[in-house]
């Protein structure tokens, strides 16, 4: 098992290397001379020369990459041109809000998606199954920025139950934190809840029709015990993997959710950076998000190996 996990970790290295090259090359997509684009309205030759020197743009491309990746490995993701702050500091500042949102969204989607999937499979072919399927497809199809706006209209403007914007960290005041983040977390998790429901349903249907469940029924166990202790336990293994994989996508979805609910997180950081042409921040956020995503897929694999007795060896 240890060798399997070690091999999987080694396989990540080329992926991370290529990923870093792609993210480094993003800067090269800037139309024309990147130094001119980075200088923005300030076309003073001295400023441009300074930018060229600061960004190592006067060096050959592989050398530029070498300097850049060496800095990244030391934790130096560059400097935000707009805020004059190290990008790494900005990311450390903004990441907790996004992580809190993503964890809450994951929990909400697990609660809704898994429950609906299990009920739908157990009641296959009934009206409950049909409604659950329709709701799941709607969850997958609804644009989360529109769902956010509609929920603000209902819960904040019409009913006045929840705040429309703002964010309080859970470490500060958990009640206010929950009130400010429950709507955005629901919006962020709606898509994954739909995906989870469909996966859980098909995994449960497969499990319910398997020999070991038939054996459990033949032993005279009650239906609830058969479903919860036997079928669900086995059906949930792929769901763990899916949950870990989807966590990275939740960070991506947070871009829109944070924009709608004015949450000062990771997503808002990249959007503000895009509009202020703060390219180092854009690069940094993409790099960190992609790395988290890769690490989550590693965790998913490890979780799968640990949960699967045949691979545990």
């Amino acid at each position, binding site marked *: 098992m240890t060798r399997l996990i070690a091999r999987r970790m080694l396989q990540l290295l080329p992926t991370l290397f290529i*990923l870093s090259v792609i993210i480094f090359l993003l800067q090269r997509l800037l139309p024309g001379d990147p130094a001119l684009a980075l200088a923005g309205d300030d076309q003073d030759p001295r400023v441009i020369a300074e930018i060229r020197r600061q960004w190592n743009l006067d060096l050959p491309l592989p050398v530029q990459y070498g300097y850049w990746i060496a800095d990244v490995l030391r934790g130096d993701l560059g400097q935000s041109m707009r805020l004059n702050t190290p990008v790494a500091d900005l990311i450390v500042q903004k990441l907790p809000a996004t992580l809190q949102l993503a964890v809450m969204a994951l929990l909400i989607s697990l609660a809704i998606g898994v429950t609906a999937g299990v009920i739908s499979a157990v009641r296959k072919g009934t009206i409950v199954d049909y409604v659950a399927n329709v709701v799941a497809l709607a969850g997958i199809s609804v*644009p989360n920025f529109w769902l956010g706006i509609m929920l603000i209209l209902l819960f904040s403007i019409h009913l006045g139950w929840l705040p429309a914007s703002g964010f309080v960290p859970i470490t500060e005041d958990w009640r206010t934190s929950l009130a400010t983040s429950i709507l955005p977390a629901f919006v962020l998790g709606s898509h994954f809840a739909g995906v989870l429901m469909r996966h859980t349903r098909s995994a449960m249907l497969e499990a319910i029709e398997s020999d070991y469940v038939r054996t459990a029924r033949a032993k005279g166990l009650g239906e609830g015990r058969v479903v919860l202790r036997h079928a669900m336990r086995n059906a949930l293994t792929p769901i763990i993997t899916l949950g870990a994989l989807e966590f990275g*996508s939740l960070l991506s979805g947070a871009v829109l959710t944070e924009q709608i609910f004015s949450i000062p997180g990771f997503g808002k950081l990249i959007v503000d950076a895009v509009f202020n042409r703060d390219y180092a921040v854009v690069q940094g956020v993409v790099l960190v998000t992609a790395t988290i995503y890769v690490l989550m897929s590693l965790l998913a694999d490890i979780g799968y190996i640990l949960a699967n007795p045949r691979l545990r060896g």
Partner: protein
Amino acid sequence: MASANAPAPASPGARVWRRLRRRRGAMVGLFVILTVAIVAALAPWIAPYDPVLQSWTTVRKPPSAAHWFGTDELGRDIFSRIVHGARASMLAGVISVAIAIAIGVPLGLLAGYVGRWVDVVISRVTDALLACPFLILAIALAAFLGPSLTNAMIAIGVTATPVMIRLTRGQVLAVRSLDYVDAATSVGNPPPRVALRHILPNVLPALMVQSTLVLASAITSEASLSFLGLGQQPPAPSWGSMLNTAQRSLTTAPWIAVWPGAMIFVTVLSFNLLGDGLRDALDPRSR
């Protein structure tokens, strides 16, 4: 024994269509998609007003006989903007998927059929691109290329390409060791001919399903980028950018936010319904 005048067996396409027709959800999806496509194509003739024409006398008017969906913060007719916005959405969806197919299918074929180091290089780059969350990569690409609908379509197309590469490669690997491919090779067909004439047609059904689903996510992505200000630029209408401006009038004119989002939802739902139906119709296990 078959009689001489027995009907000819139906073509695979006809069989799939027959199975698809039995799926109500897929047919409803197809009907909505065709309607939106026709509306997008005939937008100038269907829209009652100029979608960018501002009028200070009709600012934020609720739905009425004159303005079916009401007017926005600049007095523009929302129905006309929705109709014209369908063009941006459908165009973005179709072109993004075309880009993803044009790059992804040849690379996937190459990786799966040639194998060896070609497969290793293409697969590693695909893995790296897939490791980047879709929207974040699309935002970064659109940011570096500059905000416009064309660049948004390029960004979405490039971001969707790895999915097409992986799918095509997987399908090619599944069929390339089958007897009929061996037979085609052993009778002296050159490798490009085997790949294009014998392997590619077998990849098409899976590609068709995936394209429908990618179209759905491309439409959402275009709306997302336009919502963030990185897609269609004002005053040209797009469902995503309409939602962006609608946010500012939520308390006074909520109808501005309802229609564009509802249109994105219904269109994406229709593509997903069609994609699900196609997958069932093409899946031998569901026959």
